[in-house]
């Protein structure tokens, strides 16, 4: 307690609590002048500033401080705990920034897509989603994680369905069914683990699992519960064979929802899986149970197949959604390397994707509204000249996804490649990264060419109002973030590595 101030110590709890409170009071404030949305944006900004301060407090002494926050002051083996370290602080900061920019950038398209009476409900859902993401980031208790996974599920499916329409309802139901399969598996696995270890706090579980592994007792149930929780969270984070729900849900919802779902919701589940690997089981146990190989292979398959599916899409939002499947594959490839460097690279890719994918969805939304709300790729011809900020966003996002140097994606791909040299699968990993980058180029380059092609016929049809200042501002912020991550990622990567070491 001497190391950090009382104020910083309370930040993890206060961040979650603020978002929850804001979700509760949002339905009570008048639903006009877009007050609910403004309130949400302010609260998310406050939580972002708090997370930035927490990050500063945890790292400014040069060491990586971590602390456990006992909820309700019940001591460790019984009480519920939050745990914060540098990695958690960085991730919650990035989640807040990406959430805020996705909301601001799509402020006008949200107005078009969501009926006025439903807009405060949309804000409730966004607040709940942020709260659950923060809770998943900070929690040190596996059952709390399960509860917030379910809150996350309900909120995520609702922000798909909040845009009224037959297609979104169907997509939301499909998403819900797959999510429920996933969370059911997670719950069964948590109960098995509780039966095996007698604990729900992650570090105490780790101790009990170490004992089980050294005495070789109950190895079969341990393997089964690891497999169940991995598959459950893989379904929720759209790892390839379980990703069929994603393009529908992300492609049909309103732009803000797509940006939030692709950029953030998937990442919360991946991070809880990383915590389970590092903190509950320990990397050596994961290796002994061969789960790292399974994750690695699925990641490689997702990188290739996700891109192949993206190639075949004609709708620009569905194309970007399938590209998310490929990017999730990159993250799982990093996790599957099962080294500190690999997991740090995976976390860097989480951050990169959490900033680039909302930018791509916001840009695609701006371009398709410039083309009169047509989503087909060919309908976007020449839209670059109508909404230049959106065009720049799409180009920067595309370069980032392809891994062009100086863009964000390059940094994370480079660190994934460097990390894979310590692994026995180095050839596979490098080949998959190369092949997937080429495939990314195959569908992003044509999209860029289409939006930059002059076409006289098309431009006559463009009657959309010019993009708002808010849109331009958030696009500029996204671009700055993108270049920052691409050019100055090494301090961030060092920070993440320190965070993974003390996870």
């Amino acid at each position, binding site marked *: 307690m001497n190391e950090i101030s009382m104020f910083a110590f309370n930040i993890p709890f206060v961040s979650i609590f603020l978002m929850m409170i804001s979700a509760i009071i949002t339905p009570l404030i008048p639903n006009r002048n877009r007050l609910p949305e403004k309130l949400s944006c302010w609260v998310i900004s406050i939580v972002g500033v708090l997370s930035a301060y927490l990050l500063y407090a945890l790292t400014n002494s040069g060491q990586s401080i971590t602390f456990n926050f006992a909820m309700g002051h019940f001591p460790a083996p019984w009480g519920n705990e939050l745990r914060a370290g540098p990695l958690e602080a960085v991730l919650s900061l990035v989640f807040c920034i990406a959430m805020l920019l996705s909301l601001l950038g799509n402020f006008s398209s949200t107005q078009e897509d969501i009926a006025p009476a439903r807009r405060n409900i949309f804000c409730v859902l966004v607040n709940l989603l942020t709260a659950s993401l923060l809770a998943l980031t900070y929690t040190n208790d596996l059952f709390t994680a399960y509860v917030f996974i379910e809150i996350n599920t309900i909120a995520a499916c609702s922000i798909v369905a909040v845009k009224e329409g037959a297609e979104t309802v*169907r997509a939301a139901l499909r998403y819900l069914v797959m999510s429920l399969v996933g969370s059911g598996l997670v719950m069964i696995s948590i109960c098995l683990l509780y039966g095996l270890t007698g604990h729900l706090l992650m570090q105490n579980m780790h101790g009990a699992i170490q004992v089980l592994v050294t005495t070789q007792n109950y190895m079969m149930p341990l393997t089964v519960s690891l497999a169940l929780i991995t598959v459950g969270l893989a379904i929720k984070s759209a790892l390839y064979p379980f990703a069929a729900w994603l393009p529908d849900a992300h492609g049909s919802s309103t732009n803000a929802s797509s940006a939030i779902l692709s950029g953030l919701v998937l990442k919360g589940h991946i991070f809880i899986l990383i915590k389970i690997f590092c903190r509950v089981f320990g990397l050596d146990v994961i290796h002994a149970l061969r789960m790292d190989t399974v994750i690695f292979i699925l990641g490689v398959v997702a990188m290739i197949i996700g891109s192949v599916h993206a190639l075949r899409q004609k709708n620009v939002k569905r194309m970007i959604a399938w590209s998310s499947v490929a990017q999730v594959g990159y993250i799982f490839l990093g996790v599957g390397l099962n080294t500190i460097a690999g997991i740090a690279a995976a976390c860097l890719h989480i951050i990169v994707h959490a900033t680039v994918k909302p930018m791509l969805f916001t840009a695609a939304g701006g371009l398709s509204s410039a083309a009169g709300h047509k989503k087909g790729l060919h309908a976007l011809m020449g839209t670059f000249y109508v909404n230049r900020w959106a065009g720049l966003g799409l180009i920067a996002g595309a370069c980032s996804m392809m891994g062009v140097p100086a863009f964000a994606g390059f940094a994370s791909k480079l660190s994934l490649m460097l990390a894979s040299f310590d692994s026995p699968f180095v050839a596979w990993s490098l080949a998959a990264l190369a092949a997937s980058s080429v495939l990314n180029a195959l569908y992003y380059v044509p999209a860029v060419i289409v939006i930059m092609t002059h076409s006289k016929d098309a431009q006559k049809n463009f009657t959309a109002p010019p993009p708002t200042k808010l849109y331009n501002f958030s696009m500029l912020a996204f671009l700055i973030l993108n270049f920052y991550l691409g050019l100055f990622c090494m301090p961030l990567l060092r920070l993440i590595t320190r965070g993974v070491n003390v996870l």
Partner: protein
Amino acid sequence: MLEKLLLNHYEAAAVILSGIGLTNLLLQRNLIKKIIGLNIMDTAVYLFLAAKGYVAGRAAPILFEEGGKWVTNPDVYVNPVPAGLVLTGIVVSVSVTAFALALTLRLYEHYGTLNIDEALLKMTEQQEDIEAKVSQAEEDVLA
């Protein structure tokens, strides 16, 4: 093997039930049946927790008096945490079920079916109709 199954018959029943629930959730085409499958799966997990949490011969974790004194020896009581987990799980499962049913209702309003694949089929048919009409209109304009 059989002895162990008989010894843990509650757990074995829970595993079989959760398998049935999961299969229903994944393979049923009718959404109401899917949701029933989800509930079977959740309830099976609660059975598992309840079976794991009960130790024969111990009392429920509520303090009781014996001879004018509170019994505070923890070995007399069962662990209260599994019961707490079951309660939390029930709350989660009820809210998820309600949400799923509400969405199913909306699906029925939009498509007139409870089958999610039929809904997809109807949607593509509608889209094809619209596209056909648009191309017809374009041809009319050209003519």
